[in-house]
């Protein structure tokens, strides 16, 4: 971008560029308006619109169910709140396992690789079903067979695998010369990792991990399959009582209210990091 010095008359280049920008903005606004108008006008013309509107965008049903949905969303937030830190810790631990270089500790490396292979390779819902119903089925007494515990464990196991891979890629992104330099200063392997590699690696992977946590916020809803009544299940209950899908639309809106700002924040972090490089 060419900026003219403050107070000076704009250069021809600056004028030309601002004209281009204005034109681009006008075209963008025009095409967006056209598409929005087309949707707003054409969709209600569809023969089934009245029925769809009654089933999915039903004002009275929305008003009746929305407070209950908000209430149930607290459960999602609670599950997220206790899972997220545990995922961060275990993800880091697994990533470190995969990075050990001492031959004696090879079993740790093998464990790290096997772990990430398994839990990255399985659909979350499958892990939740197997662990959520399977482990309590071993005959654990209360409260140790609670679906909250085992469902959360399933989420933690799965997401820790993803986080571990992200952190490992962060560790790999730190140039080998830094390890050499640290060691030539007399730092031990552990201290090199702790004071030199990890601080840089973790900062590099913050945006990628943000995206994972947004995904986790959505996947919390999967715990409803093993019993807990969170927002998705609550919406399902309303749906079957009223034979109306509007509660799902309400639930979607509540999710978006949380995930869109979080996504924007992750984008912002990523852009800032790119700018810094």
């Amino acid at each position, binding site marked *: 971008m060419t900026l003219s010095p403050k107070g000076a008359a704009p250069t021809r280049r600056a004028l030309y560029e601002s004209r281009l920008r204005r034109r681009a903005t006008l075209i963008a606004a025009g095409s967006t308006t056209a598409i929005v108008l087309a949707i707003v006008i054409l969709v209600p013309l569809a023969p089934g619109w009245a029925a*769809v509107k*009654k*089933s999915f965008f039903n004002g009275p049903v929305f008003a009746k169910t929305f407070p209950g949905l908000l209430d149930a969303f607290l459960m999602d937030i609670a599950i997220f709140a206790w899972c997220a830190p545990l995922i961060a810790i275990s993800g880091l631990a697994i990533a470190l396992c995969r990075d050990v270089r001492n031959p004696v500790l090879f079993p740790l490396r093998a464990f790290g690789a096997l772990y990430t292979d398994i839990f990255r390779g399985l659909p979350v819902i499958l892990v939740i079903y197997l662990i959520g119903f399977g482990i309590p089925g071993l005959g654990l007494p209360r409260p140790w*067979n609670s679906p909250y515990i085992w469902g959360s464990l399933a989420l933690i196991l799965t997401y820790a695998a993803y986080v571990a891979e992200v952190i490992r890629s962060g560790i790999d992104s730190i140039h080998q010369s830094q390890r050499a330099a640290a060691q030539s200063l007399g730092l031990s392997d552990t201290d090199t990792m702790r004071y030199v590699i990890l601080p840089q690696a973790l900062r590099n992977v913050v945006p990628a991990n943000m995206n994972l946590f947004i995904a986790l916020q959505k996947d919390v809803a999967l715990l409803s399959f093993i*019993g807990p009544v969170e927002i998705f299940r609550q919406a399902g209950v309303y749906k079957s009582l009223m034979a109306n*899908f509007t509660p799902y639309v309400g639930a979607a809106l509540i999710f978006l209210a949380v995930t869109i700002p979080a996504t924007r924040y992750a984008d912002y972090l990523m852009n800032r990091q790119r700018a810094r490089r």
Partner: protein
Amino acid sequence: MKSLTLALCAITVSVGTAPGLALAAGHESCASGKTRTDGVLIIATGNPAYYPWVADNKPESGKGYEAAIAYAVAQEMGFDKDKVKWVRTSFDEAIQPGAKNFDFNMQQFSITPERQEMVDFSLPYYTSAMAVLTTQSVVDNGVEPTMDSIKGLIWGADANTTAVPMLMQIVGPTKDPMLYSDNTDVTAAMQAGQIDAALFDLPTALYLAAVVLDGGVVLGQFPADRAENPDQFGLLMEKGNPLKECVDDAITALTESGEIAKIEARWLQEATGVPVIQ
């Protein structure tokens, strides 16, 4: 086809030699032209469809309470056994807007005013008591079929049914209930000891206790009038389906002739002798 039917109808009525035949033809003219496919009645049920409602997940055998009722209703409306076609739908497919692939859908749909805003129900073909399914180990721990005793249990229910509001209204459990997607998941949770008890319509509870759940016990049933509105099952139809009148006529006729009671005695006879929870 239609004109042929009409012609036959006219001949039967004008000759008037066989009153039974004339009656059947009369019903057929009620339903003719109102089904999805002319001359065929398409009935939907769940997938899988559970005993005792449908035996062996094969509704076309006519075995099981709902399968038998379906064929009786079809017969009454003038559709012979070979004119009935079965399709499978989930609950959500049954209520979603847009073209339906069935004339009516029967999978223990409870009739409620809220649902009636969105879909049409026939007159009820069954009124069920709600029953408590639990396991022998819970009973061994001293749970009795009394209100006080069952309030403190950890409850579960199938979230896609009216069991949830019934549970809150009839029992009012002290702890928040757990909800599942279907009977299989409820029984899995009960097997894993995660819930103590669950609410089902009585025939389903009896089946789950006897066949599906290891050590399953039906603790008791609630009197049908316990709930503000008893749990009545109706055939679900698309809102404004012109067939509703004919279906209602058929169910009224079957109720009056005692046919429905006969089918009930055949498939749901065990549904007595379970203690009543007061």
